[in-house]
């Protein structure tokens, strides 16, 4: 069975930080199509701090580290993304409180917790055109794949889920966040939150040598 250590999780977060920082302008531009154009900057501002602080964060347990990351999101991520990503890390952290390593099944439970937390926080449901349209099926897919113990296959599977979510939600009208204020104008634009999640996953594939060819234009740049 795969067990992910604290160090491995730390590395994964470091890689995700690079993704967010590198895509600051692109993610903001995507948000600018229908939202207020702050998504990339909000997230990158926070992840710059997260990346810088990672080495010195409390590593006594996976949960401890994730709760610290949640705090950094609360402090440094603006807009809706602050409480959304902060809640995600907080719930994942609470679900891995004293663990010094996590199994794929633990990870599935952590993601599920994060998803439930985000839904409770922001009141969004599947189909509201938010990152939950990626995260909800991801959580399901993880639950399904976790028993296999195959981390690479799981990563590939969830990346595909996120990739597809970009195109499947493209024509929806946003019902949450700033993009919802423009109503119909939000149709025909991808949701930046979903693109953000998918990009992180795709970058993890690349980093861990998992071969995946995305379909959404936003991942094929």
């Amino acid at each position: 069975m795969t067990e992910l250590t604290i160090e491995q999780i730390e590395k994964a977060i470091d890689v995700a930080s690079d993704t967010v920082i590198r895509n600051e302008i692109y993610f903001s531009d995507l948000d600018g199509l229908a939202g207020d154009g702050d998504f990339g900057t909000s997230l990158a501002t926070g992840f710059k701090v997260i990346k810088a602080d990672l080495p010195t964060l409390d590593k006594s347990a996976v949960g401890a580290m994730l709760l610290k990351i949640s705090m950094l999101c609360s402090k440094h991520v603006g807009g809706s993304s602050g409480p959304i990503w902060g809640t995600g890390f907080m719930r994942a952290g609470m679900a891995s409180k004293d663990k010094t390593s996590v199994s794929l099944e633990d990870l599935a439970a952590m993601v599920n917790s994060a998803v439930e937390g985000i839904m409770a926080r922001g009141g969004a449901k599947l189909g509201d055109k938010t990152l939950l349209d990626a995260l909800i099926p991801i959580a399901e897919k993880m639950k399904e794949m976790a028993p296999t113990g195959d981390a690479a296959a799981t990563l590939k599977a969830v990346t595909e889920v996120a990739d597809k979510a970009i195109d499947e939600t493209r024509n929806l009208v946003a019902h949450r966040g700033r993009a919802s204020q423009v109503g119909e104008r939000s149709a025909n634009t991808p949701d930046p939150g979903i693109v953000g999640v998918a990009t992180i996953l795709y970058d993890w594939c690349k980093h861990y040598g998992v071969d995946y060819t995305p379909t959404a234009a936003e991942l094929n740049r």
Partner: protein
Amino acid sequence: MKKFVNEPANFVPEFMKGVLLANPGLLEFIPEFQLIKRTDRPAENKVSVVQGSGSGHEPAHIMTVGPGMLSAACQGPVFAAPPVDACYETIKSVATDAGVLVLVNNYQGDRMAWDMACEMAEAEGIKVKQFIINDDVSVEDSLYTVGRRGVAGNFFVIKACGAAAEAGADLDTVLAVAEKVNANVRTMGVALTSCIPPAKGTAIFEIGDDEMEVGIGIHGEPGRRRDKIKNADAITDELFDAVAQDLPYKSGDRVALMINGLGGTPISELYVLYARAHERAEQAGLTVVRNYVGEYCTSLEMAGASLTLLKLDGQLEEYLDAPAEVAVRIF
């Protein structure tokens, strides 16, 4: 950019510094969290009332901190919710055994930030309750499940809750006051021009030279419709009808009537609107017991105004009448 700004990123802390310097003694400023609090809060046995939202709506929110009003408030960047930890620190800064009431205007970002902050505060044993203000009738059949927006009616919720808290009411009572005001207050606004957030440097929306946006949001959100500009009376009538029919307010009601400027409208024009609104209220059999004309909840330099009605009862009249002091001074 036709604005008085230095580095746009410093706009909010700089204006907050100005508020502090111009109001010595009354307020305390904690720059790290863009948080302003009454120097005399927390006070034992008194409920604290807090708020926090995007900047650009001055005097809401930090400029409504003061005796008989908010105990503390934090500001996010212009038109963006404050970060969660600022909300949390705001609650903590005035936490008392009597508890803290968080008044949240109904915007997704603010709600999520305060919701998480309350969760964090509760986890630390702080007694805290949230209340959502949503007085804007503009987008009634909104697609958007976040529901009606919180706008100028916010002033009355703060004023009444502030007075109740000052009088020593307990947390449930202050919360009930918030509920009562919110249940009886309705607002609708109209914009003639857009506004320019400093960081953006350009207008937040486009609008034709002869157009107005009826039911505008205070961040430039679309309203009910775009229309040709009408004369002041016709505009007031539309706002009045939309607001008055919503509760509905009925003949014999005693009300507070507010014309709120959105930031760029001359004082004289606000009184032209007020004159008509007052007449319409009287024609409808309402007794205008209290009158408010000025800037209470703005959208930077947007030319526009909103009309608010609040149905009163003895308790609310008393709370509105109670002494209060804020950073918006004349003398």
